[in-house]
């Protein structure tokens, strides 16, 4: 589907990426920053999945009646690995945020910066 001569899915991916980047840069709350990061990750994953799509392609599973062209299965494997990585990053970030909260009693960056 085209929008202003561009593929709609790519436009959406770019918009989603920018929304995430905006959250990451502009929000003061560390948790919201982390959510922004997750939105960006989702945008990249969506891009990878769409890149494996082939117009009119069959799923790459061998059963009777399937014929070429096949959709590429590799992007899904990539996204699966990417999700695992993203979850680990989120887990480490959450652990750090918990530690920051326990020590300073706040997770707002502007308040953290004012601390001595």
């Amino acid at each position, binding site marked *: 589907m085209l929008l202003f001569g561009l593929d709609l899915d790519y436009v959406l991916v770019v918009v989603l990426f920018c929304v995430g980047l905006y959250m*990451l840069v502009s929000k003061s709350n560390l948790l919201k920053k982390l959510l922004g*990061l997750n939105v*960006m990750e989702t945008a990249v994953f969506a891009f990878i999945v769409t*890149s494996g799509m082939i117009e009119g392609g069959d799923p790459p599973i061998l059963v009777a009646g399937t014929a070429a062209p096949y959709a590429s299965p590799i992007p899904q494997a990539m996204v699966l690995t990417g999700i695992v990585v993203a979850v680990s990053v989120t887990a480490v970030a959450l652990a750090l945020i918990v530690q920051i909260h326990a020590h300073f009693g706040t997770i707002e960056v502007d308040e953290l910066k004012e601390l001595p």
Partner: protein
Amino acid sequence: MNAGWAEALPWTIVLPMVGAVLTPAVAARRPRLAGTWAWGVLLVASALASGLVYQLATTGPFSYDVGGWAQPYGIELRFDHFSAWVLPLLLLFVVIVPFSWRYLDHVMPDERRPAFYALLLLNAGGMIGFCVTGDFFNLFVFTEVVSLSSYALVAVGGRGLAAFAALKYLFIGAVSSLLMLFATAQLFALTGSLNMADVAGRLADVGGGPAVMVAFAAYAVSFMVKTAMFPVHVWLPDAHAIAPSPVSAVLSGMVVKIGIIGMLRVYQVFFAADVLELGAFNQTLVWFGAISIVMGAFFAIFQDDIKLMLAYSTISNIGYIVLGLGLASPYAVIGASVHVFNHALIKATLFLAAGAIIHQTGLRTLSDLRGIARRMPQTSAAMAVGAVSIVGLPPTAGFVCKWYIALGAFESGQAPFGFALVFGALFIFIYYVRMLNAFYFQEPVHDVVIEANEAPWSMRAPVIVLATLCLVLGVLGGIPLSFVEPAVLELLPFWGN
């Protein structure tokens, strides 16, 4: 044992990773055993790595198909002259780990040691994997292994502030990793392959165009963040200064270098494909490199905290390497490739010596540490050797590379950058002279400094070994230079100049 060493390639990655996972189990009863265990694992891994380098020296670059799946469908591990960096990397780990045995006493309680060493081993395994993989997606995965363990290592010793520095590092690092994943996906969408050699071949068919340019740019930005070049360096100083000293040595010396190695890998692919006119990009690298040299040195002058000063000095030295790569003349690129290792060695010397001083006195600023050389002569001498080395005075390890990079600047007719390099060295000279002046020629102001003792041997020995190596490599500097030369000359004809 000729072709046999290729079989050791996957084990060199797997061994530290499995060792990392087993660390908490091995050290369950006696947490202090974790350090010895990690050291043993790294020793075995370095033995394997020396076998790999021996094979490389005798038969040239070689590959290993993981699981026996043929390329380009299977995952390829490839060992070439740039991968040879895994051997010095592992040897540095072997020296740094014994230092951390005693150093951790005042950093963390005993029961957290297994986690620390597990992270360190994971970090080593990730970097080895990063250097030897021949597959773009694996490059991303190994980057994340290295990055995640680095974030955790920054936070491992301290409380709130360390966690905040680590989180800042994590946010910036994660965005750069995302860019890398995006670039990988873009290349996959364009070529339908992830194997580096295969992508290079297919890119030549795809041709140039904005899509290829976007992929290249995403890689370039991602690696620039990972190496902490000047405009995107903000995460580095806090993270490297607040981490425990052995970790600072690993992060500053080695982890930032994955950006450089990654850049070289991407260069290899894009130049082999010959689809982009990269002269303008090289020029950008040269400028960013020169700015990093000057700004890193400039900020370092105003630091009172010795570790913060060393962290800023890393930014300036990364500038040297990037400048050398961008100049794209044989001398400069050879010098830059060797400086990847020599800077790791020098920075490990400096951070470990600084760590020994901090461990013995509990102080970390230049004004507090005045006169420390009287009580800790050997550590201070090592620090002095490191300082002379990083300024780039002969006959030390730093001189050889910086000399080559400067020669390259003049050789490629970009003399102003040669002068920028010399002025950068002068700046660096100023702040290390400040440090040596405080250590050697000023009166102590603190009782701790007057009563300080030389560090225990398990900390002093690594520092002395590293400082000696700085001097030895200054005299025998030609060996690593001639080692990378064939790889660089093979790459250069494609280098967009």
